[in-house]
């Protein structure tokens, strides 16, 4: 007798087992995706009233998305994309640079640097949000005011301990010999890095890319303290202001929520394998 799972449920094939499994798995799918399907259906539906929210379609219309345009939703979406685009680029560059150093170089103070990385991961960003709003208004030593600018939403997410550590673990696996061969051939430090190391790290770049994307896209408190006018809002923080609209009821809110959800869901579906890998490596290793 072979036992591959704890409950052995997969191997039960009787009619009763099939019914039970269908109900169970069907129920799971409905419970966990129901609200999302409901959002998809209702955003394209004619519903004006919260009580009409349902997973059963009631017609198909694009008017919520047109009305969303009139209320500036696409501007908020653009802000979100600018922040996530530059933020992710910065975050990935910073991570690969730092990881290269941590995985490849031996130098005094490395243990301290690793401790610093871990400390930043232990420090919840919510805890420092109040002083961060003060620091962003007057960045030493130049007295820069980043409040009300994209930079204020981008720079604070530029370094993320999680990506650096995931990348470091991965780079340790890349064979050192390749790099040494490049050095012998006379390639400089930066050239070796970009032509030898980075291409080998593609799988890990997928992991930190998809995690970084969802992390930055989901930022809420940071844009909330940085944006001073509604034209600077990112989509997640703009949603609250779209709740009540005389003309379209909850329609615009639903359309905007759908637009806020789709990018991370699409990113997840495309990079699923990388996502699961990062998830288990991040959680199991703590």
């Amino acid at each position, binding site marked *: 007798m072979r036992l591959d799972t704890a409950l052995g449920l997969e191997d039960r094939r009787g009619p009763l087992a099939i019914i039970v499994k269908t109900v169970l798995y069907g129920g799971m799918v409905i419970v966990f995706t129901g609200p999302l399907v409901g959002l998809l259906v209702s955003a394209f539906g004619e519903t004006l009233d919260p009580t009409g929210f349902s997973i059963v379609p009631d017609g198909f219309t694009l008017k919520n998305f047109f009305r969303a345009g009139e209320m500036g939703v696409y501007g908020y979406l653009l802000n979100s994309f600018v922040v996530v685009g530059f933020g992710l680029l910065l975050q990935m560059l*910073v991570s690969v640079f730092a990881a290269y*150093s941590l995985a490849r170089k031996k130098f005094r103070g490395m243990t301290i640097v690793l401790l610093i990385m871990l400390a930043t991961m232990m420090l919840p960003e919510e805890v420092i949000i109040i002083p961060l709003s003060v620091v962003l208004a007057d960045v030493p030593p130049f007295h820069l005011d980043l409040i009300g600018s994209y930079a204020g939403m981008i720079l604070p997410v530029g370094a993320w301990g999680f990506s650096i550590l995931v990348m470091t673990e991965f780079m340790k696996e890349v064979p050192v010999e390749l790099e040494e061969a490049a050095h012998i051939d006379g390639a400089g430090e930066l050239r070796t890095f970009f032509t030898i190391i980075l291409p080998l790290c593609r799988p890990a770049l997928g992991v930190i890319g998809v995690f970084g994307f969802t992390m930055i896209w989901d930022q809420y408190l940071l844009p909330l303290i940085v944006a001073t006018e509604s034209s600077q809002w990112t989509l997640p923080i703009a949603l609250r202001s779209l709740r009540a609209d005389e003309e379209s009821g909850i329609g615009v809110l639903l359309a905007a929520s759908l637009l806020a959800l789709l990018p991370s869901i699409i990113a997840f579906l495309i990079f699923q394998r990388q996502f699961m890998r990062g998830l288990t490596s991040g959680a199991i290793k703590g």
Partner: protein
Amino acid sequence: MTTTLPSGPTPRQGPGRRSGTLTAWLFLAPALLLFLYFKFIPMFEGLRMSFFEVRPYLGDEWVGTDNYRTILSDGAFVSAMWHSTALALGTTVGSLVLGLLLALLIEGKARYLWFVRTAAFLPVVTTMAAVAEVWRIMYHPGDTGMLNTIIGWLGIGPQPFLASEDSSLLSIMGMGIWRGTPYDMMIFLAGLVGVDRTLYEAAAVDGASTWRRLRHVTLPALRPVFWILFTLAAIRGLRVFVEVYVLTNGGPNGSSEVLMTLIYKLGLQRGDLGVAAAGSIVLFVATLLLTLLVQFLRRRQPK
């Protein structure tokens, strides 16, 4: 890519050791600078602010521990602490129990199981603010609201959900469990892969029931995963902000006010930055104590 070259102490080629150290620090510099400016300076600034009355343009005034005294004797802050704790505990335990149960039920290699897992995992990657708006609509208190319609089929009368002081916190918890369960489920599944299969077979040879096998083989193997998930989720629960801000903004009548929504209101809406900073430090100390407590309990567990 797995060519095995003779290993052993290979002499390092290339530039000398000192310039190697310099490049190392240069490669690290962007990360360290960003951490310094946006993590460490704010942290120390927060600590400093918590002992001052912060007055922009006028200069800060040293007030000693007054901010802490103010906040710890404030009834709203104390009840926010209890709400945060209850919310963190409820969401954590609910997600862990459900996540473990679902992981056991869905373990296996079949293709359709992979589909169910992927579908069930979607809540985890969703944007919190958007999904909270959806839940706010589903929690519509009228008897034609979506969730009230569903519980109506089960013969339960309409509930006020977010609109009542008695159920607002529980309703937020419900959404938190919906979003937290698939995450825990996935990590438990990864843990289940690592369980020694020969132990299952040995248990079967000994005639052990499924329940005994579960209790003596599977669950002990999952213990480390359980502790990690518990710590992560409890800390995340204590600092919860977005869900509460979107769903109720602390209402009705403060019944779902948590630490972060209160700190946000104190600091950025009322402008009482010093007191808000003190509140943040209290929250930080709470998460620190929680982490240490869990580590302590974990060490004391019999192996």
